[in-house]
């Protein structure tokens, strides 16, 4: 009997000893917080892979400044090649094996849709997917925080600018034949129909197309004086080249996905001059102190010969800014629930994007864009931040 009691006591003691500390949160250890991100490092959208590398540089900068509440941030990047099936696999790995605390960024609409439920089921927070599709915040999910301005809203801002400021009424649209392009088209058509107008021509392009001559001929035949582009950078460059050849020179207008003016200028051999486009981030040579600091971080933490200081690189900073702010607010022992609550307290938070506001049930944080123009290969700001209609 004595023995039995002894064994019981030992057993109870060992159970207590082995019990992990009560507040063990996935991805949080004594000195680090692990954050996950996927992005196309290869494949047709690899151009946008720099977002993840931007976040990485941002975290390195923060860590050298002492981290967040005493912990360092560790970013784990996985390549999904812009293929939804691969995104699912890498996100599963990040959740189950790497055990990340939260996700930040993640390029693509279809790729993000493939993992949205998976991430939400495990109650892992996800901030700032690099897509303006409305599917991520409508209906709102408690763990999913969208930042990128919605394509349709941005398109509406650009359409109004074209009609009211540029005074062009014969608007045609060249759009990518998928959700990305169609949401842009929808935004433009909504403004036009509200004014009793119609797009003079709507022409689509497939992701892998490399010949746009008949598309451009159609645009030219429509007599459009302004053409809105909701396509990939390559397609925009091909279209401008083909248009120049047949002597078609409308006012070109493009989505913020083509807001990397120096790249577009180089690609089009100067034809990008005069193009008006939406921007969702401060311009690359902006003199704001935050941008100056990030430019230094770019020089310090990457090889500038290989990594260009482009819009999509520092978008990696921008998508992570609200997350970092909320982590600071989440206190000494961050939990996922505490982090979500902290995100909801962000009000008019200003990093290098427009003002960011979240709240209970409000999961689209950024609702502003501004209009820029390409002048001699550089982006020039034409308007202040414009709030989009919801």
């Amino acid at each position, binding site marked *: 009997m004595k023995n039995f009691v002894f064994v019981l006591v030992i057993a109870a003691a060992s159970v207590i000893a082995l019990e992990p500390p009560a507040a063990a949160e996935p991805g949080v250890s004594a000195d680090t917080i692990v954050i996950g991100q996927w992005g196309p490092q290869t494949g047709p959208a690899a151009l946008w892979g720099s977002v993840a590398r931007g976040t990485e540089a941002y975290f390195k900068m923060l860590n050298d400044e002492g981290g967040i509440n005493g912990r360092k941030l560790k970013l784990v990047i996985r390549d999904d090649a812009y293929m939804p099936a691969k995104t699912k696999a890498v996100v599963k790995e990040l959740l189950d094996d790497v055990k990340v605390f939260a996700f930040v960024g993640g390029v693509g609409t279809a790729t993000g849709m493939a993992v949205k439920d998976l991430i939400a089921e495990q109650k892992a927070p996800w901030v700032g997917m690099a897509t303006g599709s409305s599917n991520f915040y409508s209906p709102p999910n408690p763990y999913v925080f969208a930042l990128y301005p919605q394509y349709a809203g941005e398109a509406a801002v650009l359409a109004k600018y074209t009609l009211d400021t540029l005074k062009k009424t014969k608007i045609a649209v060249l759009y990518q034949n998928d959700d990305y392009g169609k949401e842009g088209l929808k935004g433009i058509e909504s403004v036009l129909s509200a004014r009793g107008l119609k797009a003079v021509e709507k022409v689509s392009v497939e992701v892998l197309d490399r*010949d746009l001559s*008949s598309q451009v001929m159609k645009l030219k035949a429509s007599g459009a004086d302004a053409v809105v582009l909701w396509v990939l950078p390559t397609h925009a460059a091909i279209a401008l080249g083909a248009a120049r050849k047949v002597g078609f020179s409308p006012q070109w207008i493009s989505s913020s996905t083509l807001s990397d003016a120096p790249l577009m200028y180089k690609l089009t051999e100067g034809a990008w001059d005069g193009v008006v486009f939406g921007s969702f981030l401060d311009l690359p040579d902006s003199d704001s102190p935050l941008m100056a600091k990030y430019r230094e971080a770019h020089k310090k933490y990457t090889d500038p010969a290989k990594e260009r200081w482009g819009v999509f690189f520092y978008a990696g900073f921008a998508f992570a800014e609200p997350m970092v702010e909320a982590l600071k607010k989440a206190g000494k022992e961050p939990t996922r629930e505490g982090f979500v609550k902290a995100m909801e307290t962000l009000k008019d938070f200003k990093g290098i994007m427009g003002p960011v506001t979240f709240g209970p049930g409000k999961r689209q944080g950024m609702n502003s864009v501004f209009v820029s123009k390409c002048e001699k290969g550089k982006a020039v700001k034409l308007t202040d931040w414009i709030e989009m209609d919801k």
Partner: protein
Amino acid sequence: MLAQLIVGGLATGSCYALIALALSIVYKTSDVLNFAQGEMAMISTFVALALLEGAGAPFAVACAGTLVFAAVLGAATEFLFLRRAKNPTTLGLVIMTLGFEMILYGFAGWKWGSDPRTLALPISDATVYHAGPVVVSQLNVAMFAVSLLLMALLFAFFRFTRLGIAMKATAQNPEAARIMGIPSGRVLSFTWALSSVIGAVAGMLMAPLVMLDPNMMLDPLMKGFAAAVLGGMTSLPGAAAGAFMLGVIESLFGGYVSTEFKSVVAFAIIVLVLCVRPSGLFARHYIRRV
């Protein structure tokens, strides 16, 4: 608009023609459909860019260097990869080219990144000639001329030169050809080198039109393949004619019917041709090689 669409179609068709020619040369001599053709051309074009911009070579030197590189790449692909296969079936070899395609694609992404680039050629797409309502660029004219010239040269090469005839003999029966004293291995390597050089020419001429990045050849390769099937994989003039037809059909379809289904047309044509005339419109029909 009709005339311009036809001219645009012919211009695009000449891109397809160069690729169709490159594909059919290899197919003619070894029955293998080379899926790596596009990426081999893409890599060669990147080499041209590296020589022009990285090393600052004059255009003629860069061009020559690129063609030499392409020839070596082609020959090496055949010699180092395909010939190592044990008891290869045609299907096995085709799968090997598919694997090689992925290696080259990954390599280009790693080496040169994915930002699209431009390749500065002395022939420009921005310099245009007007003929009535029709506009055509210097580059379009050059491509058209190059594809016709290559087609004619290759046709003559296969018909009249000893090496060309040796290539045809190797295609028909490698064993017999070897017995007759034809070094069929060397002939095959040469075929691949030749095909890769044509691909490189295509890549360099197309770069200003389609932008140079690792994905530049994905679509043109498929279209070149469709064109070759349309015209006949075993007939070089047939493959080129198929390419011009495909370019014009696509352009007219995009202009008058729908841009949404413009790219699908090529594949609808493949299916149709395979049903009606499996050897292609311009190739002699034969049932099976012995």
